[in-house]
């Protein structure tokens, strides 16, 4: 019995089956000493990767109950893992992108980002001068999307590049972020300590912090979630693009690919020679962003025309 179970005051908290008995004993002592901590199971839980599949299932069931109650709709939390023989890759056709930002907002809606104060966006679209080519330091992200495309300008959406050598994973002091077998870099929102080392390390501005309690109106909440993806995040942790892990691991396109009105976004399995992404790579000439940093992105830019 933990202190929480005894008190009955923590009913909404998920009971982590991966608890450690010694730590639990300490935890009870700590509660008696401080009288403050309530979420002791969370306090002493194991990191995600140490949990057995059964433990993970029990944990996600707990979240499903909690979110269903909180948002007043049936919420599912999937823990589907990577498929064998799949490594996801993304292609972005710069000659097609018109900078409409539909991808930005489709992403926010799909992935349950905080809606305001501040709104969190995983995709940033940069407006740049055609005369200068790709030049981040002279780009503008606050252009007016109602009047695109502007003459003389081109648009470059940037999101997590799902690097093969991700500097963010290297720098995380607690191992709360890692690269999955299918190439997706994920975060354990319950293990992240919010030190923001990963945000300093990421060369693509792809990581975003929950500076405040995320605002997610119940009616806008997307109930189809993944444990390492779009399930609601707490305050004080980092989040990022997961290639829509909740969709792509079930064979769907990411929301940004689906919404793009000009077909600038390509997605698929890099290990499958017939996939859309491989077709683009075979027939076009692709480049990656900041190749000098040797992060080896799974995100490729190209000019189709």
């Amino acid at each position, binding site marked *: 019995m933990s202190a929480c179970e005894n008190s009955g005051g923590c009913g909404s908290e998920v009971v982590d089956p991966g608890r450690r008995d010694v*730590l639990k004993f300490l935890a009870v002592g700590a509660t008696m000493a401080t009288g403050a*901590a309530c*979420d002791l199971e969370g*306090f*002493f839980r194991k*990191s995600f990767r*140490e949990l057995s599949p059964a433990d993970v299932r029990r944990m996600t069931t707990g979240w499903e109950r909690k979110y269903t109650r909180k948002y007043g709709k049936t919420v599912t939390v999937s823990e589907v893992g990577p498929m064998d023989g799949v490594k996801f890759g993304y292609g972005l056709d710069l000659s097609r992108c018109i900078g409409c930002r539909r991808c930005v907002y489709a992403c926010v809606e799909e992935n349950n980002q905080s809606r305001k*104060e*501040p709104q969190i966006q995983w995709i*940033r679209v*940069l407006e740049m001068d055609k005369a200068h080519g790709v*030049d*981040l*330091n*002279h*780009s503008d*992200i606050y252009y007016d999307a109602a009047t695109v495309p502007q003459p003389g300008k081109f648009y470059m959406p*940037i999101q997590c590049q799902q690097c093969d050598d991700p*500097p963010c994973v*290297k*720098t*995380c*002091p*607690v*191992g*709360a972020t890692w690269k999955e077998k299918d190439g997706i870099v994920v975060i354990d929102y319950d*293990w*992240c*300590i*919010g*030190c*923001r*080392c990963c*945000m*300093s*390390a*990421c*060369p*693509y*501005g792809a*990581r*975003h*912090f*929950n*500076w*405040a*309690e995320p605002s997610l109106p119940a009616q806008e909440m997307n109930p189809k979630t993944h444990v390492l993806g779009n399930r609601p995040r*707490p*305050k*004080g*942790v*980092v989040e990022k693009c997961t290639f829509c892990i909740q969709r792509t691991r079930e064979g769907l396109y990411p929301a940004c690919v689906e919404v793009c009105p000009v077909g600038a976004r390509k997605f698929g399995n890099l290990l499958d020679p017939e996939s859309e992404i491989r077709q683009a790579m075979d027939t076009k000439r692709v480049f990656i962003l900041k190749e000098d*940093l040797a992060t080896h992105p799974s995100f490729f830019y190209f000019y189709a025309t």
Partner: protein
Amino acid sequence: MAISFLRGSGRIISQGDRAYKIWVGSLLALIAIGLFAYSFQGRQGLIATNLRDQVSWGFYVGNFTFLVGIAAAAVMLVIPAYVYDWGPIKEVAILGELLAISAIIMCLLFVLVDMGRPDRFLHIVPFLGSPNWPMSVMAWDALVLNIYLGVNLAVVVHILYTGFYGKAYNKKIVIPLVLFSIPMAVSIHTVTAFLYNGMAARPFWNASILAPRFIVSAFCSGPAVLLILFQVLRKRTGLPIKDEAIQKVAELMAYAMFLNLFLLGAELFKEYYSATEHLLYTQYFWSGIGTHTTLVKYAWSGLAASLIAFFIFLVPKWRRNMTLLNVGCGLIYFSVYIEKGMGLVIPGMTPDTLGEIYEYKPTLVEWGVTAGIYGIGFLVFTFLVKLAVPIMSGHFSAVEAEPATSAPGELSAEAH
């Protein structure tokens, strides 16, 4: 035994003259402000700061970095004192260790208040959590900072405890620990430098000159605090600190200041001569980018302070003038605070990795929390010094502590 030591210590720190009480009172007021500000931040989240995704580290991390330097500088006094057995400094080396303890406590607090989830601090603790060794520099930094704190605490507590009972400290314990603390001091500042240095995404930090600059600037700022402290203590408690010790430290500081300026020059040459895209960050600090010029005045006043301090410390006649020396200490302290605080963190992140310029300035909440942490640090230091001085000068020991009629804290003051 231990209880009478604690009781005696409690008596010492709770008693003092009017100036002492006002000082402690104002520190407690600062701490209250800090607690109030932090509880506000705790409720709102880090949105209460002006940090955002573009500039995600700021005032807290800047102060942390600066204070690691102060903590590391204790080594400067320890090296000549113990390695070369140089008497005059040996007497005051323990004060450097007290400073290190206080500074490290402040460092750890600054990291804690900067964390989005301070409730999860156990995740970085070996065995309890899952520190990401060997890859994460932050995981190493947490480790070395805590070891350094532990080593210095062990030395200081042992020396005070044995001193309290009028016994000589155990050389077999103290000397190895002190010698160990020398590489530890270098390592805390080196690892902290590597934390920035290793980030290829931030060209301003990604320069191999960074760790040497950290060490050298620490040798400027740390002793500056101690020089002022020596004079205060000499005046108020009659602790026998020789001019010789002060001048020796000042001389070493002059060399450190020269090296510091030289390394800065080397870095500026590289940036401005090669003038690549990476120059932008240096430019943001020294001349601003367009209308974004928040840091420029700090950059130049910091450089001016550093130059003036260097000449004061360089010319023997000038540094022997105590007033000038103290002005120099203040100037170099200010200069390093700019250089290793906001002047390091903010230009590293402005413009951000996608070229956006977000001008960061701390909020009132950040100032409040910071004031509170300095309050705690100064209070810890005050108490430690208050304890150490009578014990070091032999005016306070178990024998004298027993009769409750006399106030042990006053003994040293009365004796002189």
